[in-house]
């Protein structure tokens, strides 16, 4: 502690202190805004699905039910925290925290618009994949520590599902890495802007398809919500959780959805940029701030999440595995092969 303090107090290190201060402020802003988005993602989901299902959705709390997410949060916060008698207590406490922290940490490497990123890591993409794998520990441990059969089955399902689809998702992004020549998310976006099509979704349509399917499985959403399939496993791995611990899983899941949507926007849809051929055609669009484009892309994919949830039934466990290993991974490998060959051909190596 002393050494850090001395470094900060020492003359000439005022820039260092300032840098730390700026990062802290950035973190606070990003977390606050991200959690607000998460809260309203639940509201958005309830409204969207309600209207797809001839219902109205939340209406009671505030105008158009706009304060519903806060009411839900307050309710969950004040609920009784029930811990099963036979639960493995330390793990039971820890697992929602692991899940939530893994989701929040991923926010650090996301560039929301040009130059705004907490940690401009040169391995940003790998870091995101690593964090989403770490989140699976939260799920598996919660299933294990609850000491309930339904949670246990849900945790096991989650383990195999996340591992299988992690591979497919990682492989689907390799094509993007080859094209951009970087793992830094900001660089990937800049590479897309420099590319003739402006977005990687057109040359990387195979990778895009694999990524979208894997993103559904990775965030445990329909049609791949097997770890929490309520008609089979009651609520899956978080069956025994209540109150704010449950809320942490809930927030983690929606943060995960936002991160997957952001990753999709950054890697395939050009992040905060729009393709040049559009701005050449309609010049005033280039005056729109980058964050607007970014959020539009993110929420378009969030809407797609909800839309799919309102439309499709759930796959069975073995079918999910078959899709992952027999369809998605071969497709991703083919995509890598083609992308690599084309890149080598362009560079004149072949």
């Amino acid at each position, binding site marked *: 502690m002393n050494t850090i303090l001395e470094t900060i107090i020492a003359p000439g290190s005022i820039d260092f202190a300032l840098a730390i201060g700026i990062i802290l402020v950035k973190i606070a802003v990003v977390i606050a805004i991200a959690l607000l988005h998460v809260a309203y993602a639940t509201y958005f989901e309830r409204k969207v699905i309600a209207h797809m299902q001839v219902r109205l959705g939340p209406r009671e709390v505030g105008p158009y039910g706009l304060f519903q997410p806060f009411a839900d949060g307050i309710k969950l916060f004040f609920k009784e925290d029930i811990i099963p008698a036979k639960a493995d207590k330390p793990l039971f406490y820890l697992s929602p925290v692991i899940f939530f922290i893994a989701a929040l940490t991923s926010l650090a490497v996301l560039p929301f618009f040009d130059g705004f990123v907490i940690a401009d890591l040169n391995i940003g993409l790998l870091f995101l994949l690593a964090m989403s794998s770490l989140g699976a520990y939260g799920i598996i441990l919660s299933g294990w520590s609850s000491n309930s059969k339904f949670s246990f089955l849900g945790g096991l399902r989650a383990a195999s599902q996340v591992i299988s689809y992690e591979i497919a998702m990682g492989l689907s992004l390799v094509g993007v890495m080859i094209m951009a020549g970087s793992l830094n998310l900001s660089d990937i976006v800049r590479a897309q802007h420099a590319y003739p099509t402006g977005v990687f979704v057109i040359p990387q349509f195979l990778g895009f398809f694999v990524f979208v399917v894997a993103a559904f499985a990775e965030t445990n959403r329909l049609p791949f919500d097997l770890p929490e399939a309520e008609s089979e496993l009651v609520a899956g791995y978080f069956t025994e959780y209540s109150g704010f611990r449950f809320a942490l899983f809930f927030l983690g899941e929606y943060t995960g959805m936002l991160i997957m949507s952001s990753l999709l926007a950054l890697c395939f849809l050009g992040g905060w940029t729009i393709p040049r051929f559009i701005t050449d055609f309609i010049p005033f669009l280039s005056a729109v701030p980058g964050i607007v484009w970014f959020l539009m892309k993110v929420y378009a994919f969030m809407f797609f999440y909800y839309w799919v949830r309102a439309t499709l*039934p759930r*796959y*069975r466990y073995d079918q999910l595995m078959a899709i992952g290993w027999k369809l998605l991974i071969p497709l991703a490998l083919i995509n890598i092969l083609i992308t690599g060959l084309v890149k080598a051909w362009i560079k004149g190596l072949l």
Partner: protein
Amino acid sequence: MENIEHPENTFETRELNVNLGPQHPATHGVLRLMLDLDGEVVKRCTPYVGYLHRGIEKLGEHRTYFAALPLSDRLDYISSMNNNVGYVNAVEKLFGIEAPERAQFIRTIVAEMGRLSSHIVWLGTHVLDIGATTPFLYAMRERETILDLFEILCGARLTVSYPRIGGVRNDVTQEFLDRLYEFVLDFPKRMDEYETLVTQNRIWKDRTVGIGVISAEEAVNWGLTGGTLRGSGVPYDVRKFFPYDAYDKVDFDVPIGKNGDCYDRYIVRVGEMRQSNRIIQQCIEKLPKGPVMAEEAKFTLPPKDMVLKDMEHLIHQFVLITKGPSVAEGEVYVSSEVPKGELGFYFVSDGTGKPYRMRVRAPSFVHASVLPRLCEDGLIADVIANIGTIDIVLGECDR
């Protein structure tokens, strides 16, 4: 060292014993299944029933035939109208009376409405169990219309007790017929909506085709009836084989499946909904004029307005309700086609106003017994599909 070739011998494995129910989101009431799981594979499945036992058969023996009618509402509470129709038909056969033609047509209409409302609940919950939420809410919208129509007809929505021994409680109003006809014309479009979401859906087919297969021969041997039997390709339908009410006067098809899997049972029931709609439409168009209660003073309750005005009728009512009619000794078994299958009422009369024995042959009970046959060696997710596809209601199963 000898275990190196068989690493599974180095540790002990046990089957996971999971208690599915009686409180579980997918057991449609209070069904309890004990599942022995090897991983996700169901090794053994044992249904436990009886959590909703109310002794309806015994209660029926302590009431006169008139007073026991509301008990039949509580059998399969999703389609109480069909149970009522089955009950009154059985009692009428025992009494040796027949309802007037108009009453028979009205009963056919309301029974088919009951079938629609039950099949709608089945469709919604079955699809919901497989994970699709939207058809459930669409289905509830149509069920609401049917329940509203029941309310117009007799004031009750769920436990209706509308048919009476010897006819029906009251005649239908023009408003009821108009609104029902409007619904009937609109319903095929609604069906198209559900089917767009489900029938050709690839995930739906992956989840149901080839799941819970039961051959025609086995299905007959297990005593399956209704859509569960017809899904295996046996065209048995009480309405066709032993027509009651106005079923011999209307034209309808009996949809049958081929493979006896969940998907075929789904197709059969969806087809039945369209046929029910056809039956209602024909009945409204052909509805004859006339009385709605048989003129059999010894066996039917007198009209209520006359009871309030006239001494003779009051005495009749009093005697029939308290002592019951004097029925000839004998026994009778009459079955009817309810949404779940063949519902049979078996009465033994000892000459008094109350049945000596009332026995209910409940299709849900038989169908619950076939669950182990369908589920064993399948996956745990298929158990849910199978519970949905046999369409059981525990109120009827436990009685």
